[in-house]
């Protein structure tokens, strides 16, 4: 990276470079954002238990469990990318970044397929047209849950999906820079903060998967 203000050696400050500190601070606010969404979900679910369904009745848990596995794998490849550049391995960095991009994009793709299937079954965020039926049930079966179920599901998973998508775009940028040789063993801040963000998004998904799909 070019020497800028952001890379100036810390003085009275912490022994952490600015970009990394800034990313940690930013992630704190992200924690609060998802805390707000999850907190709202918990309040709504406790207030209206009848508006939510038992796990697996409406949502396809095995499919999303597989998708969760894919996202966790992408965290592993991200770690491998960072480990590669720590050793100065440019080829390894590019290879593992590309793997992370593909896994992340695959996750978003599965989520889009999931949304398409669910909306087809009447599981929509719109309160007035919500008519979700049990998975595999015949058309016209009893409606399961209520509008709050659809609204909270799409808001929470949707905001997470947006975070993954933005992450994939940033990964593409990092990959493009890596191909131009922008990172070295001594200058790998960009890869490290990308990794911090990516692991955070992964961690949030594990929480969301548990809360939205499994409980």
């Amino acid at each position, binding site marked *: 990276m070019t020497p800028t203000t952001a890379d100036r050696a810390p003085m*009275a*400050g912490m022994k952490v470079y*600015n970009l990394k500190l800034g990313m940690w601070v930013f992630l704190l606010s992200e924690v609060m*954002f998802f805390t*707000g969404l999850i907190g709202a979900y918990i309040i709504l679910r406790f207030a209206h238990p009848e508006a939510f369904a038992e796990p697996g009745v409406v949502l396809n848990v095995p499919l999303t469990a597989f998708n969760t596995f894919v996202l966790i794998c992408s965290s592993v490849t991200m770690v491998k990318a960072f480990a590669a550049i720590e050793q100065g391995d440019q080829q390894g960095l590019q290879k593992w970044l590309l793997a992370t991009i593909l896994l992340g994009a695959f996750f978003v793709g599965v989520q889009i397929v999931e949304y398409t299937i669910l909306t087809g079954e009447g599981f929509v965020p719109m309160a007035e047209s919500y008519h979700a039926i049990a998975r595999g049930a015949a058309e016209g079966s009893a409606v399961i849950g209520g509008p709050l179920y659809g609204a909270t599901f799409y*808001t929470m998973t949707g905001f997470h999906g947006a975070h993954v998508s933005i992450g994939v775009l940033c990964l593409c940028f990092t990959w493009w820079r890596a191909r131009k040789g922008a990172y070295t063993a001594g200058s790998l801040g960009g890869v490290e903060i990308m990794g911090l963000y990516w692991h955070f998004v992964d961690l949030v998904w594990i929480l969301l998967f548990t809360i939205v799909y499994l409980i």
Partner: protein
Amino acid sequence: MSTTEQEMGKALDAGGHHDHHEIPWIRQYIFATDHKMIAKQFMFVSLFFLVVGGALAGMMRWQLGFPSQPMPGGMILPDAMMAPTPNGAIMLPEFYNSLVTMHGTIMIFFAIMPLLVGLFGNLLIPLQIGAEDMAFPRLNMVSFWLAVPAGILMLASFGVEGGAAGAGWTSYAPLSTSGEWTGVYLGQQLWLASLTILGFSSLVGSVNYISTVINMRAPGMTWFRMPLATWSLFVTAVLILLAIPILAGALIMLLFDQTIGTGFFRPEVGGEPLLWQHLFWFFGHPEVYILILPAMGITSEVLANRARKPIFGYHSMVLAIVGIGFLGWIVWGHHMFQSGMNPLLGTSFMISTMAIAVPSAIKVFNWLATLWKADIHLDVPMLHALAFVSMFIIGGLSGIFMANTPVDIYIHDTYFIVAHIHYVLFGGSLFAIFAGITFWFPKMFGRMMNEPLGKVHFVLTLIFYNLVFFPMHNLGLRGMMRRIYDFTQYEFLAPLQPMNQFITVFAFLLIATQVLFVINFFWSIFKGEKASENPWDSNTLEWTVPSPPPHGNFAEMPMVYRGPYEYSSPESDTDFLPQTTPPGGGSSGVPEPTPTPEGVEA
């Protein structure tokens, strides 16, 4: 002037190591990354919004002072806002709702907050900690250029079908979830979109402030040598960082309710209107401290400097700031005593709210002790700072009234609340902003503001301000509800009309008085007396660099040897000791050999 300053002056004359004259015009003034220019950009934009917010308040006061009488100049407004009659145009109730909403929104989010955080955060943090700029200068530019479209969206909402948002600045659900109730559809959505964008702007800014304070301090600038203004801005940035995402989540959910038809806050489809109140106030109460903590910091700087005494109890001041910042998170329920709440929960919110009086009182008594037997210089910044302390005491005391659940049953949603919020936000924050602008004006523009004109502005503002807002306590206690379009429709409120007329007259005078400030401000930018490097004989680092400071601020890295408030120290020949003065360097005595400042590693 100390030797350090002279050396710096020489180094700067030699041109320093920054090629600031090579920056293209557009990068210097429009898409600027220099924190001082961004501070000025925030200042001009938010002073503009202060004028807009004042104009909205003026129109509301007309309706309250002279209910449903033709408003002078009302004919120029469109029929969606005013009903034309042969004698003139009469304000429509829907437009009054928009005025109430937009006055609060604009003043809080587009005037006070960007003035305190955008202006003083950007201006003071790097200068006071001895940094050449923010940790992320380009991100800083992004922060400003997100705030501008947010402001344009907010103003544009006046022109759309149905008018601007009308559900109050708190936008309580279900009033805000559908245009059915307010008649406002697109305006409410623009309001939500605008605040979401502005929230992102504040968030980006606070990431920058926090990183800068943690990582960019000059050698020797330990945490407990930081000026209180920087301390308060740091804690404020933490509050913004953690509170704004909650608001953003709530705003987006409400936007979904309005646009795609989700049912988060809509009771008719099983949603929870109370959830909005909880989310809003979980953000909203830290927001209240976002609006007052920087004002307290500014006041501490000005008071200590103009009293020529060390601030009384520096450490307790810092702890009080941090304490207020923490307690601000566990009091949000006191806005909801009347919303339906378990009385036991209400009591716990009452106790936590009253606990905030402790750190607030620590600050007030420290300020008073700072003034005790001091050599007080009554110039314009000091007058405004003294007004801050006095008005904040009144606002703080009325806060204690409302924190009592039984008292709040009676005064909830009345003009008592309006009086309280204006004593804290106008009497508190705005007087501190005046103090700050007049105090740091020479650093921003290299010229002093006009002193006599400033004093006239101050005296008139203080008098008119109290004549406007003090009687509102009385209106509230006599039952006049806030946000009411025409109170004379109630028999028991009709006798309050003379008092409302009185308030309206002085509100117009208060607004007119601000013209003096505008004149002083612009006149002084061009024609004011040239300011020296350190016109207030201050200790903090921003006064060791030229006025205005060059790009990159410090010609060489400043070394910090002492705290920021060593005024009238026996160590010094003058009555101040800049933070860069080495031990023994302030007197004619023998300087100590090879000073090694704390916090610097060899």
